[in-house]
């Protein structure tokens, strides 16, 4: 009886000691969490969540500063995936945000473009090419449809078109 109690106490104490040691020395790599969250985000970099891009939003979620329902382009699928990853409840998209948009692309009306180059720095993924005094264009393959280029345009020559996603 006493031997059994002593043995089990010994095992428990050793295990507790080793685990505590491990938790202290092996640092919890929060970067991994951020990357895992970032992997689930749609990478539109649209900043609608209130953070300047997908990774900053992922960092905010990891730090507990932001809710998981602030990504309109990701919609319910992203919320569900985040909920699963972080073991939280699935909630609806934040009501203050616009509803999930269909996949879109920006299109510059090249005839109307005055070449002011103001949309260039606005693009979070450098998908707009052009130079001062020259017409600009959007590289379709790189555009994420974030709409951030629309506001800076002084002549309103940028429109959003549906991304047909014709994957053969």
């Amino acid at each position, binding site marked *: 009886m006493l031997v059994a109690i002593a043995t089990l106490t010994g095992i428990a104490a050793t295990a507790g000691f080793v685990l505590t040691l491990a938790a202290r020395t092996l640092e919890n790599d929060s970067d991994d969490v951020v990357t895992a969250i970032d992997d689930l985000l749609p990478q539109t970099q649209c900043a609608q969540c209130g953070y300047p*891009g997908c990774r900053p939003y992922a960092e905010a979620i990891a730090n507990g500063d932001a809710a998981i329902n602030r990504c309109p382009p990701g919609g319910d699928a992203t919320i569900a995936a985040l909920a699963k990853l972080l073991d939280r409840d699935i909630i609806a998209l934040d009501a203050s945000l616009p509803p999930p948009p269909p996949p879109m692309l920006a299109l510059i009306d090249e005839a109307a473009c005055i070449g002011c180059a103001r949309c260039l720095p606005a693009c979070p993924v*450098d998908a707009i090419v052009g130079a001062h005094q020259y017409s600009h264009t959007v590289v379709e393959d790189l555009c994420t449809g974030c709409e951030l280029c629309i506001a800076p345009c002084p002549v309103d020559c940028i429109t959003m078109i549906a991304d047909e996603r014709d994957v053969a």
Partner: protein
Amino acid sequence: MTTAATEDLYRLPGGIRLPSFKEQSRGRDIIDLPVPAQLVLPVRQHAGEAAKVEVTVGDRVLKGQTIARSAGEFSAPVHASSSGIVVAIENRPIADRRHKESLCIVIETDGKDTPADTLSPIPNPFNETPETLLAAIDSAGIVGLGGAAFPTVAKMRHAIAASIDTLVLNGVECEPYISCDDALMRTEAQSILYGARILLTALDLPHCFVGVESDKPEAWEAFRYAAETDADERLQMVRIPTIYPAGGEDQLIYLMTGREVPTGGFPSDVGALVHNVGTAAAIAELTLTGMPMISRIVTVTGEGIAQPGNYRVRFGTPISDVAKAAGGYTESAKRLIMGGPMTGIALTSDALPVTKASNCLIFTGPAIQTSREPERACIRCGECARICPVRLQPQQLHRAFRFDQGETLDGLGLIDCIECGCCDLVCPSHIPLTHSFRAAKHQRKLDIYDRERAERARERFEQREARAQQRAQAQEKSLRSMKDKASRDAIADILKRKQQDASRSDD
């Protein structure tokens, strides 16, 4: 010409023996359908990019004239199937699995059927360079006539680049009801073999297999007869066992050579190229008359049509015109299917035009079951796995599909599914397996496309951030160094002045 017996072949894993239902359509000769009053020619009749329209409304066009040019390497031009006036260029519904509609060129025919004077036959194709032949095939809009309508030249160029060693002509036609290739082989064996020899010249290959299914003895005899007058040792006949889907491209290659096309790969990866017999006949026609591809043989069959048979139909002919020429509908007509009963698509209207991909039109009667039995739970009997010709595990795939496990689907080889429909047929629980795999394949493609785009966006966003940071650091550094320099200079200045002052006061 030599022949190979069935025993020499490799055995197809899985597959199924199906009732053929070909008798009703294969009895008669091929009948030429009259030119319809109106032709509706979609610019999207082939796999790949849609052709680019080259005519405008009001133009007079001649038979064989190019009305839409090829949009690139993976595309094919469209030609006027008869002479007449272009009356409209607009979006119209088409018979296609992936596209509901396509831009169509509508021609009001004039009944004269005047051929264009630009057509140029190739009198001796065997003396031409491969490049000349490839260019001719390209501009003639020839696509695979087995049903997938893959541009023939794209396939050939791919094969040449991969320096293949085996050319196979596919005369297997394993799906029930369809008999258009059978009819072609029986009546035009000579021109198929002529086309095969042109293909050998164009591809610079030493020999070609011609695969014919064992339930087509007339076609086999027709080839033998044609070979008697026109012997060519480079062509070898191979009798293929009647097992569905032995006529699938990858399956046929395996049967003949034992080579397996790798996951996500092409026949060229195992040194093979497969063309439909109809494609070879179209190439022969092109060199003999200069006429591009403007018509094909269509099997019109089923209990819903009065005179089933094989008809030569010009592209753009409305299906209703085909039905009229085939004696009209019978009372039992229920549904319209394009392609075979296993892989075909149900059409919603008979106003749709016949295209390069329309190998068969089935007007079904009550004999084909139009409603499914209710789906029940999978009982894990494993029949689907036993029958699958690509050795997949349909029941596992189905489970992964139900639980939306994208990566598991990939791991189980979803993309290898050839959508043959065998698993549906044997499933005792009536689970629509093929349908779910088709949907899953599409969804996976979209997911992967989105994932790739997201990955690219992330990279570019991170690079941009890094650049911004670098710039900020550089700015700060230069500011600091300017400050440093400024203060150093200032101190030196003061010291200098002090010294000067001191020396002055010494004086």
